[in-house]
């Protein structure tokens, strides 16, 4: 019997499989295949951009191109193109848009009614500060070279594309379309993958990340959990609504809940995904960093 099992013939994959894969890679933006396409394109661009970045580090960076209307740099309205220096503000009104070249590593599109400042333009630190409005960043570089500060968080690029919005009150919303972004603030960190979002609030920092396709009740309850004080316990809604993919949210909640609630979060997670071999319940409940990271590395396959 074992010999026959070992001798099962290897079957040739039909040529149509690669054709389908290739057309998926070329197809624009259905959710998963779009992701693959973007990933491949961004990675290829990353290789090129990083090569240029390394060998042309001395070239001037932070070029700005006008896309619509009349954006201003500092106190002056810009023409079709301009340059922004460290400490200067770029501002758009309701009819103007602009695009900043982030050194040689990417671009940032500045949407209308936005105010953004160039904080640092060094090879190892490309940093903007977003006071209000909306920017969309596409960065093709090794992780942790590009940062966006807001009043409630710092978005750390881990090789990605994303949109960051900040309203007049300083509250923000990060939406990641490719790769990963880490939101950091006063020791609090949220890891946000493609397809997921994370809210931020002044004086509180980044909330808990969630997938955009998560159940609406989960997202609403999560907002209460992160930023409100309510009579009802948001976990009563979040936990039963969570799907396997929402272990992204639950994994973050482990370190944001008190011990009794952490037990509940862990129980729900275990119903959705097993612990890795060698990792114990006690380690997770005590927030053992290594154990949490091991589990996250496993859960990533569901995200």
């Amino acid at each position: 019997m074992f010999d026959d099992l070992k001798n099962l013939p290897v079957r040739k994959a039909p040529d149509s499989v690669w054709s389908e894969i290739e057309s998926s890679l070329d197809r624009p933006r259905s959710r998963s295949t779009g992701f693959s396409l973007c990933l491949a394109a961004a990675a290829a661009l990353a290789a090129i951009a990083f090569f240029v970045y390394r060998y042309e580090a001395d070239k001037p960076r932070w070029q700005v191109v006008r896309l619509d209307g009349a954006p201003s740099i500092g106190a002056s309205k810009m023409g079709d193109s301009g340059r922004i220096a460290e400490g200067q503000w770029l501002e758009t009104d309701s009819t103007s848009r602009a695009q900043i070249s982030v050194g040689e590593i990417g671009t940032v599109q500045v949407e209308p009614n936005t105010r953004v400042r160039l904080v640092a333009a060094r090879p190892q630190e490309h940093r903007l500060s977003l006071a209000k409005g909306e920017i969309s960043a596409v960065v093709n570089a090794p992780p942790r070279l590009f940062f966006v500060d807001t009043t409630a968080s710092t978005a750390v690029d881990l090789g990605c594309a994303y949109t960051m919005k900040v309203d007049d009150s300083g509250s923000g919303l990060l939406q990641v379309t490719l790769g990963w972004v880490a939101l950091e603030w006063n020791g609090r960190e949220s890891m946000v993958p493609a397809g997921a979002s994370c809210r931020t609030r002044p004086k509180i920092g980044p909330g808990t990340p969630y997938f955009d396709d998560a159940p609406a009740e989960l997202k609403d309850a999560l907002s209460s959990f992160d930023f409100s004080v309510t009579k009802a316990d948001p976990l009563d809604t979040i936990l039963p609504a969570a799907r396997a993919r929402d272990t992204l949210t639950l994994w973050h909640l482990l370190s944001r809940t008190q011990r009794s609630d952490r037990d509940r979060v862990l129980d729900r997670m275990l119903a959705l995904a097993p612990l890795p071999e060698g990792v114990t319940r006690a380690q997770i409940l005590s927030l053992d960093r290594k154990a949490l990271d091991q589990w996250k590395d496993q859960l990533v396959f569901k995200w």
Partner: protein
Amino acid sequence: LVVVLSEREISAGIVEACRQGDRDAFRALYETYKDKVYSITLYFFHGDSSTAADATQQVFLKLLRNMAQFRGDSEFSTWLYRFVVNTCLDWTRRKSAREIPADLRPFAASYSQEQDFARAQTGESVQAALSALPPKFRMPVLLRYFEGLSYGEMGRALNCSTGTVASRLNRAHKILAKKLAGLKYV
């Protein structure tokens, strides 16, 4: 030009090139593993070539999408098998209503006329018995005997302990032996 590499030649460089979006490198990687992945999915899905082709496609797309997560602390093939396992089991869960086909006859025999008819018949019986195993037993059998993975590698691919692997294989052996009673093995 399509480059086909041996599994030994899947170096960190190839993986890194894939990670950087190099489509030729991904094609080379695909060519190296496609038949193995397709065969596992084909045997797993009872010889349903259409489902196997779709599943193979999904495996490689997921692989590409998650290439950045591969950190080289395990064999690349072990990592790849995790995608195969997850894809097959996810597919099975989603289509549980259609999981066990009414017809469990062995699929498309590949034996030539010159080959021994009795051997072909036995092989087909084994395929049919394999098809009838529940998914959680079927996959360990394929990884162990068709792919030749060690218990440790299987544990990592199946995301369970080696004890669980051993237990599932033991159960699978018993079921297979029962189904194949009367053939030469029993």
